[in-house]
């Protein structure tokens, strides 16, 4: 299918395909061969620390940045020229907030939605009012969170099958974050494919069907939400007086994977029940008495370190 074809195959509608994306900024390799297939429908969360390549990836998907290598397809349309065909097939909320302070909220929405169908502005204004934004006021008087919501209102308005949202709830207070997630949930129910990024785990796992982890320009993991949560649930972190023997830890009942870092060991259990492992650990006198045992929720940096072995600040 070529870029200007008016008809779409059903499988292409709302689908995202990125193959072998490479992008360099001078000497820095921002993306190192990233692949992604997603949609139609569903919410895909990109997780990773700052500088991991998430925003560059999203900008390439939206046709804002040209890849040095690889190909992108949105809604059955390939990246070509200046990326206009992709921008017409999707909507986008940037991660970095810089707006025209001299414009009112209403006029800013009109600016952002130029080139979209006329009804998009009405929808964006309705969403913004639903979020409590004073659209008659100049944007320079908006707080960081209000600016974020204005961008999100514009990004949710066009009638497209794909929405690309870079850090959509960053800078929002918990109540507003809840409202934004409810809006995204509504979009999800309508069958839209949503690709969003975040460096906070908590907000993302509530809405995403799939979590893609980025680190140093690479996709290091691509799992369903259930898989990630199950892995996180099965993680036990044990601190010993001195460095434990990894082979001995691996031999304990219920242990699927072991990573030892000095006196600390991270163990992924084979099942959800930690009791067989704890019993085996207590019974193994050679390992010594653990100084601490942690079992439960992990922050994103902890999750990335424990599950994928990368340091995420």
């Amino acid at each position, binding site marked *: 299918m070529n870029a200007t074809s008016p008809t779409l195959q059903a499988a292409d509608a709302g689908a995202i395909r990125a193959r072998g994306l490479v992008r360099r*900024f001078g000497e820095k390799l921002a993306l190192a061969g990233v692949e992604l297939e997603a949609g139609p429908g569903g919410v895909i969360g990109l997780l990773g620390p700052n500088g991991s390549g998430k925003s560059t990836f999203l*900008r390439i998907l*939206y046709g*804002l*940045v*040209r890849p040095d290598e690889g190909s992108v397809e949105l809604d059955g349309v390939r990246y070509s*020229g*200046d990326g*206009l065909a992709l*921008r*017409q097939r999707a909507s*986008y909320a*940037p991660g*970095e907030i*810089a*707006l*025209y302070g001299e414009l009112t909220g209403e006029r800013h929405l009109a*600016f*952002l*939605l*130029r*080139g*979209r169908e006329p009804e998009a502005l009405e929808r964006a204004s309705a969403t913004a009012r639903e979020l409590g934004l004073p659209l008659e006021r100049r944007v320079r008087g908006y707080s960081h969170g209000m600016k974020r919501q204005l*961008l999100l209102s514009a990004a949710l308005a*066009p009638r497209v099958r794909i929405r690309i949202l870079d850090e959509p709830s960053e800078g929002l207070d918990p109540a507003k974050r809840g409202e934004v997630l409810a809006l995204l949930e509504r979009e999800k129910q309508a069958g839209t494919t949503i690709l969003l990024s975040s460096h906070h785990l908590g907000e993302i796992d509530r809405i995403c069907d799939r979590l893609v982890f980025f680190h140093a320009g690479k996709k290091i993991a691509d799992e369903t939400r259930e898989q990630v949560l199950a892995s996180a649930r099965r993680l036990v972190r044990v601190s010993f007086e001195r460095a434990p023997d990894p082979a001995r830890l691996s031999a304990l009942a219920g242990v699927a994977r072991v990573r030892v870092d000095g006196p600390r060991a991270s163990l992924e259990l084979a099942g959800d029940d930690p009791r067989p492992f704890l019993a085996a650990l207590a019974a193994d006198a050679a390992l010594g008495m653990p100084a601490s045992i942690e079992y439960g929720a992990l922050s994103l940096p902890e999750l990335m370190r424990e599950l994928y072995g990368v340091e995420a600040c």
Partner: protein
Amino acid sequence: MRAELRAKLWMGIAYFVVLEALIVAAMLYWPQFAKNLEHLKALIPLDVLRDMADKIDESGASAYVHAQHFFKACNALGGLVAVLFAMNAVALEAQRGTLEIWLARALSRRRLLLERWFAGAFWLCVPVLVSTATVPWLGSLVDEPLDLGLLLLCALHQCLFLLAIYSLTFLASSASSNPMAIGFSMLLAAITELSVYMIERLTHWSVFRFADVGLYQEIYDGGALPWRVSLPLAAVSLVCVLLALHIFARRTP
């Protein structure tokens, strides 16, 4: 396009008002200037400026208009406005971080850039043309008949000269994130060019030779644009816009 035009409306109006005020003052001063021209010529220290005074002496009010309106007011003020409009065109968006939302709309980059170029070009040229159109009426106030058509031809050439400066600055802006650096570079270049113009031996190397009294008098007397100059000026603008489009299409927000 309307939004782009609206964004520069007040600056365009201010530019017109200043141009008009300058030409009104100059025209009303003309009788006194003509009476004292011989004495003024004796006071002029530079040969290049003395040549200009000689042309006014020979051709009268039309050469005076060329000197006051085109060479002095339009070149200086118009050049400044051209740089101000163009240096901010893209570089300011990059500097304040709004380049991404400007580019992220469902519009082609070519359209975005050309709209911005045309809006600046419009407000750069319209005040020159409109203020020039008032000159015959101002001339009638001091009993000097001046031809509107020929003056507009001169204004058209002036616009081509200003558009070349504007497009060159626009090209720099499309590749830069620092509008002030562009502005200061252009200011430095203008001062250098004007200095070169004032030196008798070097004057023919100055770009201000493309828009000076002698050339405007040639247009006014001949009733045609000097294509050997006007065409290259138009070509400079065209090449700069094409290069700007090429650079802008690859620009990363």
